[in-house]
């Protein structure tokens, strides 16, 4: 097994310009490595290129140049996604399905044997506290419940790597705490977690290392404690300094 679970090498992603406009460079020559068992916080303001990078890792878009591998496999290969769990930022699930139907469907795509799948579905629904609503269609769920079913589907294949795109987006404080607990539990099980977030307090609590992206470029990368020591402030202030934000007096 390669030491680096995620390896991004000189990645560049350009979006075609619309209506004769110049192409937009979303990610500029990004190089990054995430190691086995790490919780890696991927930070940046809106439009920094975080979601674009995640899209490349999941094979949704192709890099303009450079490469990205997961467990040593090119991210464009579907087999690279066998050991990944992915939680999108918003709740993008089949709302006409019930929670257990959705999980059973995804389990089948991973070719998980039926008896194992049923055990995992039960465990995942218990973990995200949706066992009581397992037979309800997802369209009847609250936003928080939909986010939790998202987390359940992300762990249905018992992934070695979890990619979470703003996992606490739109959750209430209890929901956020629950997600944090789940991330810590997955870390204790030796899983690798790669997540983007704007909740810097939480990132500081759960992450081993972080990378800060701004306008498509990697501005800072390192262990959380080392960055806190280097800048002598909390992660939020580190983030603001790195992206060059200057407070305008009100």
């Amino acid at each position, binding site marked *: 097994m390669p030491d680096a679970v995620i390896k991004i090498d000189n990645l560049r992603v350009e979006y075609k310009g619309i209506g004769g406009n110049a192409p937009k460079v979303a990610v500029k020559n990004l190089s990054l490595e995430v190691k086995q068992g790490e919780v890696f916080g991927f930070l940046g303001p809106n439009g920094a290129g975080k979601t674009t990078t995640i899209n490349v890792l999941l*094979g949704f*878009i192709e890099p303009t140049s450079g490469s990205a591998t997961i467990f040593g496999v090119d991210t464009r290969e579907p087999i690279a996604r066998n050991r990944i769990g992915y939680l999108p930022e918003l709740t993008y*699930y089949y709302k*006409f399905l019930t929670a257990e139907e959705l999980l059973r*469907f*995804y389990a089948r*795509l991973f*070719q998980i044997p039926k008896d194992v799948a049923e055990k995992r579905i039960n465990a995942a629904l218990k973990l995200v506290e949706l066992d009581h609503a397992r037979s309800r*269609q997802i369209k009847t769920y609250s936003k928080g419940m939909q986010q939790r079913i998202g987390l359940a589907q992300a762990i249905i*294949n018992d992934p070695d790597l979890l990619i979470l795109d703003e996992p606490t987006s739109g959750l209430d404080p209890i929901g956020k705490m629950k997600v944090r607990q789940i991330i810590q539990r997955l870390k204790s099980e030796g899983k690798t977690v790669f997540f983007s977030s704007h909740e810097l307090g939480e990132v500081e609590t759960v992450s081993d290392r972080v990378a800060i992206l701004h306008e498509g470029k990697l501005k800072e990368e390192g262990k959380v404690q080392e960055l806190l020591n280097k800048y002598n402030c909390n992660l939020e202030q580190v983030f603001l300094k790195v992206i060059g934000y200057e407070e305008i007096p009100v």
Partner: protein
Amino acid sequence: MRAHLDKILALSGVAIREMYRRKDFYVVLILTVILTLALGSMNFFNEPGITGYVKEICLLLIWVFLLIIAITASARQIPSEIESATIFPLLAKPVTRSEVLLGKALGCWLATGIALVVFYTIFAILTASREHTLPVGLLIQTVLAHWTMLAIVISMTFLGSVIFAAPSSNTTICLTVIIGIMLLGRHLHKIALGLSEPTRTIVEIIYFSIPHVEIFDLRDLLIHNYPAAPWDKFGILLVYGFFYSVIFLILGCLAFNRKRLR
């Protein structure tokens, strides 16, 4: 291979489940059943010889409604996946875009197959009750030919759904093309003969390249109680239909693989 097939079947299962949980599919299905039953059980003008006309109207209804079900259901599958972004957690699994398209197309085809069986069963019951006879062989051939024709329609609509952004424009284009072929397809060659070059060659190329869906229409044979066609010749018809379906699906997969989702 088995893994690919299982994923395609899983995807088709979701497509079928979506269709039967949507109210519009039920409305069309129930409407057709009611209309077919009502028309078929009426005794117009106390005229016993009117059965043929009643059968014709019933079959026309079945054809029209199934065409609408097949095209509208197929046209929205891929665009709604992209629009609602459900495609992203799906493609984050070890599944290819081709498997997604094939699974969805299979789901639509199986769902129309279920509707087809319901409609033709009602038609068969009505015919048997009025004429006290049932041409089973021909009825089976009519259903199979119709289902094969729907395979062409569905695969063509899936190809359109990857190319055209809006499901409504794809629906209109596919409906126009299919109805156009059904009405004019067989006459294109005759039309070409009366034209000058290069239009003649163009029309002939169109004639020889389009899927002639009109040859799958065995309604007249059923209405006038013709004997069933020889099964070997009928088999060629099915092969012809599946050939076009496969071509459209391959083109659809190629286009979908190249399509930018974000």
